C-alpha cells in the first residue's frame, strides 16, 4: 500500500490521554472521538487535519493507558500512518490489531519537518521525502505481527483460525 500525505509533527512520550482525553471516553464511537484527537497537544490539529496525512513523532508514542480508542481515534481522524522513534507496547499491539499503519524510523523522525510531504511504501517499509528525494527505511515488523497484518487485523485472523 502506498500512502502519500503531509506531515504533522509531535514530540516524545505522546500519551494516550493526549491522543484522546479520558473525559471523552464515555463513548466508543470513533467519529465522536475523532473530533477531539490530540486536542490537548495541538488544538489546530483536529481542525485542519486532512484524510491521508501522516503523524511523525518522537519516542514512546502512545504511552499510558491501554485504550484502543487511541489508535481508533487517530485512524478515524483520517491519519494514514504514524511514524515514530518507538511506540509504547500496548499502543503498538492495538495499532496492528485494528489496522492503523505504524512505522519505527528514527532517522526519518530526526529529519522530517512539519508540513513535509512523504510517500510511504508500507510493505517495503520505505519512506520517501518527496521534496528532497531522501529515502528512509523503517524497522520491519516481527513475523507474528506480519501474519496478523496479512490477515487484515486480529479479528479476521481469529475468525479464520476458529473456522479451520
Amino acid at each position, binding site marked *: 500500500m502506498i500512502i502519500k500525505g503531509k506531515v504533522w509533527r509531535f514530540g516524545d512520550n505522546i500519551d494516550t490521554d493526549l491522543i484522546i482525553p*479520558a473525559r471523552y471516553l464515555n463513548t466508543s464511537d470513533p467519529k465522536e472521538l475523532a473530533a477531539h484527537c490530540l486536542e490537548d497537544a495541538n488544538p489546530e490539529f483536529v481542525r485542519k487535519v486532512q484524510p491521508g496525512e501522516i503523524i511523525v513523532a518522537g519516542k514512546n508514542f502512545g504511552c499510558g493507558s491501554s485504550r484502543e480508542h487511541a489508535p481508533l481515534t487517530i485512524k478515524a481522524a483520517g491519519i494514514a500512518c504514524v511514524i515514530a522513534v518507538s511506540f509504547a507496547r500496548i499502543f503498538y499491539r492495538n495499532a496492528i490489531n485494528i489496522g492503523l499503519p505504524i512505522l519505527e524510523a528514527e532517522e526519518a523522525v530526526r529529519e522530517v519537518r512539519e508540513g513535509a510531504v512523504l510517500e510511504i511504501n508500507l510493505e517495503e517499509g520505505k519512506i520517501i521525502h518527496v521534496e528532497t528525494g531522501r529515502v528512509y527505511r523503517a524497522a520491519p515488523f516481527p513475523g507474528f505481527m506480519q501474519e496478523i497484518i496479512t490477515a487484515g487485523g*486480529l479479528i479476521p485472523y481469529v475468525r479464520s483460525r476458529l473456522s479451520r
Partner: protein
Amino acid sequence: MAMTMTEKILAAHAGKKEVKPGELIKARVDLVLGNDITAPVAIKEFAKIGTDQVFDRERIALVPDHFTPNKDIKSAEQAKILRDFARQYGIVHYFEIGRMGIEHCLLPEQGLVGPGDLVIGADSHTCTYGALGAFSTGVGSTDMAAAMALGEVWLKVPPSLRFHYYGSLPPWVGGKDLILYTIGQIGVDGALYSAMEFTGEAVSALTMDDRFTMANMAIEAGAKNGIFPVDEKTLAYIEGRLKRSYKVYQSDPEAEYAKEYEFDVSRLEPQVALPHLPENVRPVSEVTGVYIDQVVIGSCTNGRIKDLREAAEILKGRKVHPEVRLIVIPGTQEIYLQALQEGLVAIFIEAGGVVSTPTCGPCLGGHMGIMARGEKAVATTNRNFIGRMGHPESEVYLAGPAVAAASAVKGRIAHPKEVLGNDH
C-alpha cells in the same frame, strides 16, 4: 537453561520447556479482564468473530469501575453493554455496582489471580498482579476479544530487568516511593517492552499492598509486566481467597537479566512526581513550596486498606486545610467496609474530607473531583499527564498516601513529619 520467573510462567503457558527473550509465543491465559471503557469495544469486536460462546465463563472478569456509578447517559450505555454481555454469555465474574471495586484492587482480593498465573487485561495497569508472582499485562480491546474467544494471547517474551532494593525503609517511605524513585531513575521508557523484577530485603519487608502499588506502576516505566518473588506474605494473602490451584515459580540464580539495578533505600525520602510525567520525580523536601487545591487518596495504585490506614494516621484529630478538598476513594467495597469498621471513614469525615464509593473517578479525569483550569492536586494515583484529572492546564503531583494526607492538612505539598513531628 536458567530462566527468570517471567520466562518460566510464559514457557509453562505456551506448553514449552523453555523460552527466550524476543521469542514469539502463543500462550494460554488464566484470566481475561475488561472494564467499562475497554470491554464495550472488545464486545463489539467479539461479535465480529462470529462465535456463540466464550472460551471459559469462569475465566473472564468484567468490572464496570471507571465511570461508575454511571456519571451520565453515555457511560450508562457503555456499562450496560457489559451487563448484557455478562448475562448473555453467563460470565461468572461480572461485578455489579455495590459489589465491585477498582479492577486491580478487586481481582486479587476476590481470589481471581494467584502465583504463576498468566493474566491479560484490557487495561494497562493489569500489571498489578505481578505482586502475587503472576505474569500479567495490559493489552487492547481487540486482544481481549480474541482471548475471550480463544483463551489465548500472542506475546513476545520480554527481556527481564532486575531491580534490587537493599537497606531498611525509613518511616513514611513505602512501595509508592520506591516505584516513583525507580521511574525517576530510569525514565518513562526505561523498561520499554521489558519485565521488571523486584527483589531484595527492602522488597521482602514490604506489605502486599505496597507490592501491588509497585507492580501497578511498572507500566509507567513502559514495562510489559512487573513481578515479585513469592514469599510467606504472598501465601498469607492468597490464603482463604484464591479459589484455584497455583504454582510458585522462582527465578534461577543464573537467569539472565538485560540489566540489573541496585538501590539503597535507607536514606530515601518520600517521593513526588511533578507534572506532567511520572519520571519527573523529586524528594518531597524539594517541593514543599507547591500550594494545592485538591488531594485524592485512592485508585488502583493506592486505594487499599494499608493506604487508608496510613492516611488516617496522619489525619486523625486534624483538619484538612480550609483551601483544600480531600477526596478519599476506597478501592473496593470490602476495603470500604473495613475502613468503616476500623473507624477510618470517621477520621476522614471528621477531618473535613469526602469519602466516595469505589470508582476510578478523578484518577482518569472521569468524575468525582475534576479540576478547573490552573488547579493543582496531590494524588496517590499513577499518572500525571496533561489533562489527566481535568482541565489541560490543571496539574497532578503523584505521591504516596502519607504525603497526600500531610499535604491535605498543610495546604501545600508536605512531608508527614511536618504534621506529626520527628518522633514518628
